[in-house]
């Protein structure tokens, strides 16, 4: 009887643990027909705001707490593009860092005023360990992120 109970518990636990490791595809799937290199996309992002696009690259950052965003490295040096979902819509695993990913979705423009731009740039400068002069920022900036409908993390 005890053996049966142990087996039942092991199956339950195993199925729970199994569900946490299996999924590497999220959402509706990716469409390679829309593939655009990140460097091309970021060279003229306003041209792509209306259409679905697919990007490909190495995952170099993942939201540690909620798994609600990932940063994808561009084919251009030092350039990245963030993929952002609503909390819980897709949960990207922290262990995905360093793997290749494909993501299909809509490019979104985040337009900041001058004050916000200075705060964001100050934050980035602090992270990079660089000096920052707020007065040097005189133009508001626009940042771009991909809101995906499908993401595939390649093992």
């Amino acid at each position, binding site marked *: 009887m005890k053996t049966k109970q142990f087996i039942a518990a092991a199956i339950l636990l195993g199925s*729970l*643990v199994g569900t946490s490791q299996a999924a590497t595809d999220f959402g509706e799937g990716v469409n390679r027909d829309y593939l655009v290199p990140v460097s091309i996309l970021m060279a003229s992002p306003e041209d792509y705001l209306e259409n679905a696009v697919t990007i490909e690259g190495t995952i170099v950052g993942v939201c540690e*707490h909620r798994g609600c965003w990932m940063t994808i490295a561009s084919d251009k*040096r030092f350039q990245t593009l963030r993929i952002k979902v609503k909390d819980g819509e897709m*949960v990207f695993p922290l262990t995905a860092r360093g*793997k290749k990913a494909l993501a299909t979705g809509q490019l979104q423009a985040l337009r900041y005023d001058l004050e916000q731009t200075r705060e964001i740039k100050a934050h980035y400068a602090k992270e*990079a*360990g660089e000096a920052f002069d707020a007065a040097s920022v005189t133009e508001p900036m626009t940042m771009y992120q991909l809101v995906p409908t499908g993401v595939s993390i390649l093992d």
Partner: protein
Amino acid sequence: MIKWFKSINWYRLNRNLHRDIGYFCIGFSIIFAVSGIAVNHIADWNPNYAVERQTKQVDDSDWLTLDDQQIIQRMQSSFDLTQAVKSSFWQNKNQFEVFLDDGDTLFWDRRQHQVSYQDIEPRVILQALNKLHLNETRNAWVYFSDLFAGMLIFLALSALFMVKGKHGPAKPKSIVLMSLGVFIPAFFLFLS
């Protein structure tokens, strides 16, 4: 039909259903409660991963003369690591990140002359419970979750008919306790 209807002992039926559904809900309740606590405090700790960071000062004076593979070897040897490398990435000209096979990362900050090692350990059980709680599995689990919610409603309402006499639901103490269950959430709604 009416005779049969009248012959049912509703009090006993309610108690039996409350008892058996209660047993059935124990597992569900523990899963949702444990992951609920974990997710509630997501700002204070990471419920899905145990993340440890170690940082070491390194003599990196000649590292810029090396290629990426050689830099990676130096970074790994700083922490005596042997894991395979998945990929690497220059964030900018001063910061280089290496992604190791098991999800761990190494980070070289050239300005600070530091290498940091981030060790990631998935909290396997808690991660699985959170996945169910946050309904990441979707599909059939949606129906199970709805069923569980329905059973909780039944347990709450059937509790009103479990006890008769001085501890019954119409007694002052019971009314106060039931009212608290409504007023406490209402109070927090008012505060928000």
